[in-house]
């Protein structure tokens, strides 16, 4: 089973987590100003990249807190985890031709965003 590096709890089994889809999708700043197409975009259209993807995860069977992760949708490997209020890491750095990095790098990245990996 895949181990997911929660920034609060460290590595835990995948079944403890729930998926939350694309991260960094803010509620529209001025909802009343939105037209149909913009509402459709907010409600129904999410990125669907083949490669690194910044997304939300919920550690429902652990600390019960949301966090963000960059995960490669080809290999399913976690490339970075960070707190939900932290800025999105530069996705381009993960696009390099080098094969996706193992979970070690994920924990390194998580400590870089001030998280504790136990």
């Amino acid at each position, binding site marked *: *089973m*895949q181990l997911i590096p929660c920034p609060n709890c460290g590595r835990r089994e*995948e*079944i403890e987590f*729930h*998926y939350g*889809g694309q991260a960094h999708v803010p509620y529209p700043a001025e909802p009343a100003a939105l037209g*149909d*197409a913009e*509402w*459709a975009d907010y*409600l*129904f*259209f*999410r990125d*669907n*990249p*083949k490669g690194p*993807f910044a*997304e939300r995860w919920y550690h429902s069977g652990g600390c019960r807190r949301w966090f963000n992760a960059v*995960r490669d*949708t*080809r*290999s*399913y490997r976690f490339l970075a985890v960070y707190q939900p209020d932290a800025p999105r890491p530069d996705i381009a750095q993960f696009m390099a031709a080098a094969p996706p990095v193992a979970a070690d790098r994920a924990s390194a990245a998580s400590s870089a965003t001030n998280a504790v990996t136990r």
Partner: protein
Amino acid sequence: MLTTTPGSVIPDHPDFLWRNPDPKSSYDVVIVGGGGHGLATAYYLASRYGITNIAVLEKGWLGGGNMARNTTIIRSNYLWDESSGIYEHSLKLWEGLEEDLGYPLLFSQRGVLNLAHSLQDVRDSKRRVNANRLNGVDAEWVDAEGVKELCPIVNISPDVRYPVLGATYQPRAGIAKHDYVAWGYARAASELGVDLIQNCEVTGLTIEHGRVVGVETSRGRINAGKVALAAAGHSSVVAALAGIKLPLQSHPLQALVSELLEPVHPTVVMSNAVHVYVSQAHKGELVMGAGVDTYNGYGQRGAFHIIERQMSAAIELFPVFARAHLLRTWGGIVDVTPDASPIVGVTDIQGLYLNCGWGTGGFKGTPGVGDTFAWTIAHDEPHPLIEAFSLDRFSTGALVDEHGAAAVAH
């Protein structure tokens, strides 16, 4: 006394089912994706709508995507009129398809039971039966005893976690052999002059003055009068080549088979509530599937705990399976829409057509979408049966919500 040693004579290679041509520099229609939908579209364009100068471009091998990985359930008992229209059209085509293609498909109308496990399930199921009947789709409500009669190995005991309270039954539903369907369409299309090009990945869509004029591929540039996308799990990636964003999420969807067993399961049983569905293939394997892995993924594989959950559901419903051995599990990449209905039709780019979003349930739609998508390409307007499935329904709000009928399953 035998004159030769049995097994010592190697039989000749059987005839190839289709030609394997190099791509020409230009076609009237280029279809991206050689799964069931791409092949069926090419076949109907050539056989019904008079366009034969066609190439189907496939990045891997023909029918190696979801077409090779699905659990082959065919049915048309969806809730809304729009869905009944396209799925029932498809089922009618299935009923004549072996003759039409001149190719055996092991199409078997053994019926499907969609189980109800709660009062809400019962109400929803009865509503769906009524809606189906109004649309001329064969459907009936059967109680738990009726389920047992149709499929004696189902556990209808009331003292399980999710007791079986009854089911909808569609007698004309069933299964077919997915590979044969792909090969049957490929063979027939090839005979009609369609070029089926394998190992040819589309890497670019060339658009000039709002019109698509060709594709870039791993085997060079190919000019095209029209381009039709049928890339299933990779639809977001391919549409992005034309700057089109789609409301799709690509997920792993897994399935599995048991070792070969005596015939024990005469129909198809699906359960949304306990998340499993089962049929028995002609060869004897139990074929089972469940819901998608929740995360986005292009890896054609999923997590093992999904399989474990699926098996615990299967064993509660079919205690007799407890001693069966798992033979093989696999995964495909399914393109899921917000309303569990497909997206089919024209785009804002002239000559570019879209077919995607069939998610977990597009095998049954293969003949139906092949025919109506081909019509759409030939006439440059949406076929009446797919009009409701346009991309702009997400901004008009006219969704076709089939979560109840599609749910876990197909």
